[in-house]
């Protein structure tokens, strides 16, 4: 066996002992863990690294966990990858995100660990993982700077804290960080794919952001009108009713026909605050929600048809999708999509692939 997934709802240190027991002597080269914010992050990080001393051990706090075909909460979920899956690895922490994102030093550190420039790495063999503080508000700048620096694909999500919105954490090597992002480079010997799936289709209606405050993720005006009024009108409802439709009708930046979802969060002085930055002058499609389970199943099935089998999936799923699945009582159905595939992941405060987005699952497919 080359990939194992496990989870535990026990208290520390029992949770880590439980995960070790579920590994049954398996010696991982890399451990990814995703943990409820109820766990003390420093204790958890230290205990996880101590339990798997030979491995790169990285994780974050969550708004819910995914493991072993189940959507769970108040737990630690983990994926263990051995040397048949993972070759070289490197990591770095980008700190002080709110003061301005700088990734140069992080990449220099990773290059030292790999003894090679990142520009020389085969983009079909190396993948990047990114776990960011979900309350930093800096994910857009982070992904932009990473994308400027390298063409290696980085996938991941924003750490959560069980919907408390107080503090989130990323963890590596027995340490814990806030206001920071963890970058991990992995050589995946058997290859990989990345899936970005969001269960929406365009309504054909569009809105042009004509006045925005990017730092606040605020759209003041669409089409030179108060954002709330313009959004409500395009949906054919009163401005008072419009917030009730936020989950069903986010907006999409259409890139090569594929939406990068921007989800409205709340109204502010007739403007709309989003969970994502909106760029002024770039038209957005008004989206309509479709079936999360059907769409996600379709996305996974499409990958199963490829030449190499899927040996594992890391699922960075938006908390808004999780909340919708819980409301529809379809968590079990969602989990069943991954039957027979070792899967671990978590409910995020934002997803990462090329950029930052919402109401999406970004997934690392391990071949």
């Amino acid at each position, binding site marked *: 066996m080359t990939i194992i997934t496990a989870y535990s709802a026990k208290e520390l240190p029992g949770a880590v002992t439980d995960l070790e027991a579920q590994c049954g002597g398996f010696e991982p080269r890399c451990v990814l863990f995703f943990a409820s914010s109820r766990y003390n992050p420093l204790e958890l990080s230290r205990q996880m690294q101590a339990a798997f001393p030979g491995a790169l051990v990285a994780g974050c706090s969550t708004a819910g966990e995914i493991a072993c075909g189940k959507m769970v909460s108040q737990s630690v979920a983990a994926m263990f990858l051995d040397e048949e899956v993972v070759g070289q690895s490197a990591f770095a922490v980008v700190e002080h995100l709110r003061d301005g994102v700088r990734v140069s030093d992080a990449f220099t550190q990773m290059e030292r660990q790999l003894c090679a420039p990142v520009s020389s790495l085969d983009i079909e063999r190396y993948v990047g993982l990114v776990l960011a503080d979900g309350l930093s508000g800096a994910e857009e700048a982070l*992904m*932009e700077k990473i994308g*400027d620096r390298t*063409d290696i694909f980085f996938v991941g999500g924003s750490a959560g804290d069980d919907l408390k919105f107080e503090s989130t954490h990323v963890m590596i090597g027995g340490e814990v960080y806030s206001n920071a992002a963890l970058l991990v480079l992995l050589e995946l010997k058997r290859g990989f794919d990345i899936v970005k799936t969001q269960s929406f289709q365009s309504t054909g209606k569009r809105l042009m952001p004509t006045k925005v405050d990017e730092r606040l993720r605020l759209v003041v005006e669409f089409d030179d009108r108060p954002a709330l009024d313009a959004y409500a009108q395009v949906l054919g409802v009163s401005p008072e009713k419009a917030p009730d439709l936020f989950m069903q009708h986010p907006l999409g930046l259409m*890139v090569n026909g594929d939406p*990068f979802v921007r989800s409205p969060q709340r109204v502010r002085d007739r403007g709309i605050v989003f969970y994502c930055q909106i760029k002024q002058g*770039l038209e957005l499609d008004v989206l309509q929600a479709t079936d999360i389970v059907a769409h996600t199943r379709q996305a996974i099935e499409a990958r199963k048809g490829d030449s190499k089998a899927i040996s594992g999936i890391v699922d960075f799923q938006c908390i808004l999708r999780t909340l919708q699945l819980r409301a529809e009582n379809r968590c079990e159905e969602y989990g069943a999509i991954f039957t027979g595939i070792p899967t671990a992941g978590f409910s995020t405060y934002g997803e990462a692939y*090329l950029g930052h987005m919402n109401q999406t699952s970004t997934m690392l497919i391990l071949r």
Partner: protein
Amino acid sequence: MAGQIKSLIDTIIEKRSQGSSVLMLTTRAKFYLKGVDPDRYDRLSSDDPAVIARIKEIGAELGVTL
């Protein structure tokens, strides 16, 4: 004059992607995410100085020498 914006965008995408069709798509995505629709301009688009300046900035951010 016209067409300079499209020419600059195409050059940046070509140089950054170095013939890879995958990297062409991701570089185009990076333009969108930086706030520029690469499909908005063609060889007849007027040479707006502010847009040209922004495109050149994006080129520098992506490490492309123009």
